[in-house]
């Protein structure tokens, strides 16, 4: 009986918390909770205005739960993905990401699971410093002492008095009906985890004293941005305190704090998230290869491929403090037993990763010689110079390539057994005789064909259909040979460093490439001055005024009102 009541209450709490905060700036009170209950809506001071909302990603959700409640608290459920806008980052897509009813159900299930673990008997003492007078009854004083600090960590700012009262009342109502103080806390916590104040980063701005009439992001928003940008997790206690003390709008203090963050070991987690976004690593989630054509491909390999690339990146850029450009030429990487056969190299350790160095001049050097890049930019049964060339243009050089028209005849490139066109080069040559196709293929194929000595899973091959592979390539007028030559050409291209500079700024702000373009050239110059060090780039991004300026109009100026049912009115 109590279970039924709790479920009803939980549903009410979930609906209330979600709906109350859904519009954040302008929300109607849902009719079903039109009682004089306290509101969960943050009371913003008049000078603060909401300027953006960004949905947190799955990784950010998981990292946040681990940071606040401990890594042993399990998050079980399916996350509705944030949709990536064409040619942009997921971080940009997060600004426009909504949550469907089905997605919200998943978030609610996860929230209940997390809350149940947090307040189970084995853990509750870590989060509940006070003891209720009677564990079978409500205790508003103790509930407030438990929920307010958790709310501050989850919403990344202190709870308003209204919010505090709301969650305390929710806990009290539940405790009364379930006969358990802790069940009340559990319900309240799950309501917080369902709240848009948690699922979205609500960015607020304040008048910029240096630019009268303009806005700048406020301290708590800055703390959140720093946390997610540099560590891919919620701001920690130190950041929240810095925000409370107003340090994050002080340039000197901000530089010290950001400098500490980029030099922290936790920056690796942030950098992994950045490059996973920049290099479209979500593609690994759907990576599938024909096991008959590629016997070396299996689930262990699929799992290891993105990790190999991320380890290569972080070891080079952070471990060695290496030049970003050398990512395209570095002979150093990491291996596991599962990857060894694909690369046909020895691996000492039976389990785990170990460093590996390719010989000088080996075509494997650099990120583009790695099976991760080569396999995701291939088809399930054949390589694709076009996909690879396009990925290099778009992801590494920030040069968008148009999609092919809908009526393309792909027969020539798909017929891999035609003796007249035994290699991808010959097939693409035949395909590109169509002038409609030739325009784009000129952009992509001369680049991608240099990687043809690696098949659709990135395994080395010298020939295709018994015909030796020509791996010569051309990029922006530069002729080169193989992946090694491509890597060197990219390393010398100014487009690659400008691209990563642009991506870093987009990643921090959630803005699109066009929006950040006015600052990219200057940022790239400072990147160059640092020797193309990634820490220096992110430190610069974290401290440059453009990161904290507000371009967009506040969301609540004539904002859409969202009803309880979520329907626009």
């Amino acid at each position, binding site marked *: 009986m109590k279970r039924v009541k709790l479920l009803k209450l939980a549903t009410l709490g979930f609906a209330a918390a979600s709906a109350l905060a859904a519009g954040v700036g302008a929300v109607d009170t849902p009719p079903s909770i039109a009682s004089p209950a306290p509101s969960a809506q943050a009371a913003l001071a008049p000078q603060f205005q909401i300027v953006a909302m960004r949905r947190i990603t799955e990784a950010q959700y998981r990292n946040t739960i681990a940071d606040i409640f401990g890594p042993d608290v399990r998050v079980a459920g399916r996350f509705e993905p944030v949709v990536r806008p064409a040619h942009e980052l997921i971080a940009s897509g997060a600004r426009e990401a909504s949550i469907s009813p089905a997605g919200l159900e998943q978030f609610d299930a996860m929230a209940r699971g997390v809350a149940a673990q947090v307040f189970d008997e084995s853990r509750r003492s870590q989060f509940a410093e006070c003891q209720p007078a009677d564990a079978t009854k409500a205790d508003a004083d103790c509930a407030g002492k438990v929920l307010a600090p958790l709310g501050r960590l989850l919403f990344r700012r202190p709870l308003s008095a209204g919010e505090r009262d709301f969650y305390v009342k929710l806990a009290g109502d539940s405790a009364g009906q379930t006969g358990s103080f802790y069940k009340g806390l559990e319900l309240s916590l799950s309501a917080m985890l369902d709240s848009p104040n948690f699922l979205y980063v609500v960015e607020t701005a304040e008048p910029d004293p240096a630019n009268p009439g303009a806005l700048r992001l406020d301290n708590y928003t800055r703390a959140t941005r720093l946390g997610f940008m540099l560590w891919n997790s919620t701001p920690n206690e130190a950041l929240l305190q810095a925000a409370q003390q107003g340090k994050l709008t002080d340039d000197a203090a901000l530089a010290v704090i950001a400098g500490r963050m980029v030099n922290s070991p936790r920056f690796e987690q942030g950098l992994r998230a950045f490059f996973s976004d920049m290099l479209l690593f979500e593609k690994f989630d759907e990576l599938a290869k024909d*096991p008959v054509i590629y016997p*070396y491909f299996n689930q262990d390999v699929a799992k290891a491929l993105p990790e190999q690339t991320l380890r290569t990146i972080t070891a080079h850029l952070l471990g060695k403090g290496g030049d970003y450009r050398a990512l395209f030429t570095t002979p150093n990487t990491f291996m596991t037993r599962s990857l060894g*056969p694909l690369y046909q190299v*020895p*691996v*000492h*350790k039976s389990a785990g990763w170990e460093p590996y160095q390719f*010989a000088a001049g080996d075509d494997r050097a650099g990120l583009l010689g790695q099976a991760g890049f080569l396999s995701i930019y291939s088809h399930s049964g054949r390589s694709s110079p076009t996909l690879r060339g396009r990925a290099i243009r778009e992801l590494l050089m920030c040069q968008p390539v148009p999609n092919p028209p809908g009526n393309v005849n792909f027969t020539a490139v798909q017929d891999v057994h035609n003796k007249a066109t035994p290699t991808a080069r010959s097939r693409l040559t035949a395909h590109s005789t169509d002038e409609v196709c030739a325009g784009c293929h000129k952009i992509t194929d001369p680049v991608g064909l240099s990687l043809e000595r690696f098949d659709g899973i990135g395994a080395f091959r010298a020939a295709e259909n018994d015909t030796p592979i020509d791996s010569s390539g051309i990029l922006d007028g530069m002729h080169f040979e193989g992946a090694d030559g491509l890597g060197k050409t990219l390393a010398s291209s100014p487009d690659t460093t400008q691209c990563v500079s642009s991506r870093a700024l987009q990643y921090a702000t959630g803005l699109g490439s066009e929006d950040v373009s006015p600052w990219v050239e200057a940022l790239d110059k400072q990147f160059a001055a640092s020797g193309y060090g990634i820490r220096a780039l992110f430190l610069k991004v974290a401290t440059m005024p453009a990161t904290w300026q507000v371009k967009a109009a506040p969301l609540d100026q004539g904002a859409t009102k969202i009803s309880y049912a979520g329907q626009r009115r």
Partner: protein
Amino acid sequence: MMRIATTTATLAALLAIGPMTGGRQPLASPAEGETALAKLPAPPANGEMGFVVTHFVQPVIQGPDACPQGTTPKLRDAYLARQTPEERTRLLLKENETELTRSWQSDVIGPNGTNICSQPDLFENRTPLRTVQSKMAWGMDLDGGGRGRADSCEHETFQTPTGDQGIDNQEYRVMGCTLEWRGVDGIAGDQEVGMRQFMVSGEWTQVILLRGVNSLVRDDNVEVIYANTPDRPTVDSMGKFLPGASFSVSDKPPRNRNVLRGRIENGVLTTDATDVKLTQTWGQGGARDIRGNRTKYDFRSARLRLAFQPDGSATGMLAGYRPVFDVIQSPALGGIGSAVVAGIDCAATLSTLRKYADGIRDPKTGKCTGVSSAVRIQALPAFVNDPNTATRTAAR
């Protein structure tokens, strides 16, 4: 970073002079597996070659002349054969099936929970197994023509289909007419299929590491590490081994790191006689750990012969003497199930093996306690780490 260059030459056609097992997949023995010198892989630059063993199974030569009376009867059939024709007919009636089952099974179950496979010595005077009658067997001449040396006993010898004489393989003589080994004529028996599955599962992965290889044509001094590894092999979706994987020789007991000395002549490595011990693991989920009951291959005075193939693989044989009980290790561990389900007469098998024992002479009794044996080996290039020397090697 040590790599051994291997040839990219096309796979030489393996001569198949009569299928060794099953007939579905003719496999080369060392003799017929020899590679023309011109097609031999280049010797490794660093003198090291690594292999993972993909096939390790006793070879069977199919054909009607090996077991003209058919395979050795199963326990139920053997019980029936001992009955009068009238009684046999009666027992085979459907309504007497329960009686028949109770009768033949009571014949293999002893007092106090004993049974014919767990305690075979308690069951005496069993009918011997049918033995191989043909003159053909794969194997090696371990004792100089079967005349019996100080440590072996006189016996008949076989010859190989390729003409080698004086072949010692008493294990095959005894076991070669069992259904488990021979299968239905022309189709591989359980032994072939089961051993292949064991290898693929990684329950007893074996690796071979050659050191000091300067030439595949002639090299008089090669060190051979023949060992087990806990690492499971890399196989494709069809369960086929893939070359180029890495393995580490076990650094935990039982290590089974056998160090052999050998020489290469015309693309064939042959090692001196020495004892070789390798892990056997019977079935998963057994009593001791997830990989099942663990026993040991114990080859005495064993020799390894490997013929290098143009594609970098190797094919060959391990031959030596095995203690007779080791041959029935698997059904003995299976206990009553081996008898009443698989119908194996462990006591008869053991007594027949003792009768034909030709090696491991007991100095006290003067009797031979082991049988000559041969195991066919196929191996693919692999990177083999030997923690003893922290080296690794493979063909590519």
